[in-house]
């Protein structure tokens, strides 16, 4: 009796399992044999002009002067408008709050002429004084602005921030009158107009900040001047921004509303796009393992992106105090293999410090995969076949993607150089602490350009820069970067920077691995969208094409996708 009952129970369990798994597989196979659609997400525009997109993790701040990070920036750029605004395709400065601007021949003085018809959402006029106040606020010694240092090209800005200069009127930011803003620089900065388009330079409404303090960005308090205004916010859920009817260029804003969802799970984001709940899944929000499955759909878009993925060495300790060791390790990394097999060609193998995409910049020769030469270098450094090499740890912040690459490189160093390297991962906070305090040997890093200039990648390797995080310093490198900063002639400036990069590649404090690219899903009816190398997409230019799927396919935004440095 007992035995029979047990048998019967087992049969039941197995039948149950079989039914459930059978059902799952039936559904799964039905899906894979179905004919492939042209679009991964929805193909027909929604009935109303509401753009919905996934914006990544909940933004920390809505205050443009203090924030950092892509999700924060996307919201700020929709709500606020600076002196100039980037062209959606070329990213060249176009009129924003300023209708025109002049640069003095020595490149040191910028004069912006503001429009007189620009209004804050509470009805106040936007004046040059708003900009003076907003920028000086970012530079105030007591204000915790993450990006304060990109203002330091402005005369006396750094001294004021550091507190050595008390008098704000000596900072090179002045309003000649309500509509004229004059900015004086320390050195000619050819990319200054690029900087001015960055979100820390967006204006804020003084009276609102003074009234509400830190809480001024609450949906009930916030006062803005951009194409959209904030009408709803729920944390970890969504921002709803409606078209601002008092915006000076409202005639050219075709979206009625923008909904930005805040979530951090990439799979969920892709699910939402797939189910037609979003019209745009921005770059960085597509898991690498999805790429082989979605790359053939017509709503998949890839383009160059000014960012690099690299390993940094702590050069203050042996064995990495020896440049030969660093170069040997760099030459033993087969970047092509990593990109092909682990990243499914969604990135580009890259051996330089400066990312690809800067037209006219004479890239020095990058590091290349050369295991034989790597072995020689390592032997010359005193470790033939890796003998006698101390035990070394490779640090990365916890993530499957970083682990896969670290494992591949660990294997390459073992195979080509005979080195045994241990992998360690730390969660974000600990990893940040370890890298900033140089408590590591080799660590994963990445860098995204803040502005369209090779300097965005090179300045961080200067001796005292907080982003250096290697302990490497080279007086020649520093003086070349400083000299480039004072040089107006672009080819000459680029040549100086290329020379600096060559020094960095010889010393190899950073071991370049690959260059990022933008990979995004954009519904076929979305217009005004272009893949840009800084992944900047001014939403005011977005609109929906309502010509039906056929026409939409013919004029898919893929046609306009391309490199626009």
């Amino acid at each position, binding site marked *: 009796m007992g035995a029979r*009952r047990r048998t019967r*129970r087992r049969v*039941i369990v197995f039948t*149950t*399992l079989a039914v*459930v798994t059978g059902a*799952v597989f039936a*559904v*799964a196979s039905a*899906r894979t044999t179905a004919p492939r659609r042209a679009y991964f997400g929805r193909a027909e525009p929604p009935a109303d002009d509401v753009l919905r997109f996934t914006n990544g993790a*909940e933004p*920390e*701040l809505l*205050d443009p002067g203090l924030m*950092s990070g892509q999700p924060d920036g996307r919201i700020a750029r929709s709500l606020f408008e600076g002196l100039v605004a980037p062209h959606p395709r070329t990213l060249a400065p176009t009129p924003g709050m300023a209708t025109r601007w002049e640069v003095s021949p020595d490149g040191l003085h910028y004069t912006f002429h503001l429009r007189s018809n620009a209004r804050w959402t509470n009805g106040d006029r936007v004046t040059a004084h708003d900009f003076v106040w907003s920028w000086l606020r970012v530079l105030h*010694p*007591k*204000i*915790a*602005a*993450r*990006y*304060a*240092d990109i203002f330091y090209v402005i005369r006396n800005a750094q001294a004021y*921030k*550091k507190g050595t200069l008390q008098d704000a009127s000596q900072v090179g930011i002045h309003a000649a009158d309500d509509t004229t803003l004059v900015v004086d620089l320390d050195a000619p900065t050819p990319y200054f107009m690029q900087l001015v388009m960055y979100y820390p330079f967006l204006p804020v409404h003084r009276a609102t900040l003074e009234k509400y303090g*830190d*809480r*001024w*960005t*609450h949906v009930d308090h916030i006062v803005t001047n951009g194409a959209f205004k904030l009408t709803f916010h*729920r*944390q*970890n*859920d*969504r921002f709803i921004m409606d078209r601002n009817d008092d915006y000076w260029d409202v005639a050219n804003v075709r979206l009625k509303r923008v909904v930005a*969802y*805040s*979530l*951090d*799970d990439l*799979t*969920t984001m892709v*699910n*939402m796009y*797939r*189910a037609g*709940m979003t019209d745009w899944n921005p770059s960085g929000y597509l898991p690498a393992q999805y790429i082989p499955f979605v790359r053939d759909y017509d709503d998949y878009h890839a383009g160059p992106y000014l960012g690099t993925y690299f390993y940094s060495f702590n050069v203050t300790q042996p064995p990495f105090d020896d440049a030969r060791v660093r170069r040997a390790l760099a030459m033993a990394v087969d970047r092509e293999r990593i990109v092909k097999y682990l990243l499914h060609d969604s990135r580009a193998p890259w051996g330089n410090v400066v990312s690809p995409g800067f037209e006219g910049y004479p890239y020095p020769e990058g590091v290349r995969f050369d295991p034989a030469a790597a072995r020689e270098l390592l032997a010359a450094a005193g470790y033939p076949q890796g003998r006698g090499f101390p035990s070394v740890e490779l640090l990365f912040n916890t993530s499957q993607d970083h682990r896969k690459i670290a494992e591949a490189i660990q294997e390459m160093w073992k195979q080509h150089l005979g080195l045994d390297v241990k992998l360690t991962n730390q969660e*974000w*906070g*600990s990893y*940040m*602490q*370890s890298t*900033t305090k140089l408590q590591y040997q080799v660590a994963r*890093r990445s860098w995204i350009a*803040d502005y369209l200039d090779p300097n965005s990648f090179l300045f961080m390797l200067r001796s005292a*820069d*907080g*982003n250096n995080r290697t302990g490497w310093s080279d007086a020649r490198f520093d003086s070349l970067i400083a000299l480039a900063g004072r040089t107006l002639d672009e080819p000459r400036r680029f040549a100086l920077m290329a020379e600096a990069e060559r020094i960095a590649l010889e010393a190899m404090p950073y071991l370049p691995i690959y260059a990022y690219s933008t990979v995004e899903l954009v519904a076929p009816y979305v217009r005004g969208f272009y893949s840009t190398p800084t992944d900047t997409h001014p939403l005011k230019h977005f609109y929906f094409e309502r010509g039906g799927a056929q026409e939409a396919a013919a004029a898919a935004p893929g046609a306009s996708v391309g490199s626009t440095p």
Partner: protein
Amino acid sequence: MKFVVRRLLAMIPTLWVVATITFFMIRMAPGGPFQSEREIPAEAKAALQAQYGLDQPLLVQYGRYLKNVARFDFGPSYKFPARSVREIVMGALPISLELGGLALLIAIVIGVPVGALAAARQNTFLDHFPMSFAMLGVSIPNFVLGPVLIFVFALTLRWFPPALWGDANQKVLPALTLSAVYVAYIARLTRGGMLEVTRQDFIRTARAKGLSETVVIARHALRGGLLPVVSFLGPAMARAVTGSIVVEKIFAVPGVGQYFVNAAFNRDYTLVMGVVLFYAALLIMLNLLVDVMYGFLDPRVRLE
């Protein structure tokens, strides 16, 4: 009444211990709240530290924190400085309560009848089949069940949306996913409780009186048989509310659960403290509620 007051007063030292341990543990984790891949200028970082009093000695910070908590002031979140911890938790709480409540409701509605039926028909197909299914429910983790449900019902059949929290149809999949484990538990607890009760004298008496089996089960056995379920519901509710991290993440539900993990990763000290204290308080309150309900369900239990 006296019992409830005494228990509520006993909460205070418990919460104090929780607060103290959490406070020092999170401070022991390397790093701090103001780090980013792009170095924050030293001046700006110093300004931030000073603004939140993080430049003070740890004990001073601890004292100040306790003083503020006693006044229900949990401070601003470091990560989201425009919002206070109280605002963040209170904004997310109704959503977590709703999700957890729905999941438990589903679990009770399915689990209790299934368990009762299984007990009544012990060792038949009606017992084995649902119970093996329940076993499956306990064993399948959320992060497997959720994606399977999304794949089948959201992306293939397109009956429900795969994410977000708003309309009723957005609540079905997350609530179902979260309920699976509780359905299984409740069914098994009901069955076990019922089996134990039905062997007791008063059930035999009821049957001897000639009452129909349905009446015996529904009126007499179920009341006692549900006791284990009731005691399970308290911690289950607390778990469903705050332990739904995975479900919240998969379905992009803006509840409290996500803050548990993210706040710790971000070293958002105040938010970590707020969420932990809130969870501790919730757990204590729900346990108290269970004890009170025990008194109603089982005349033998007296609250003293």
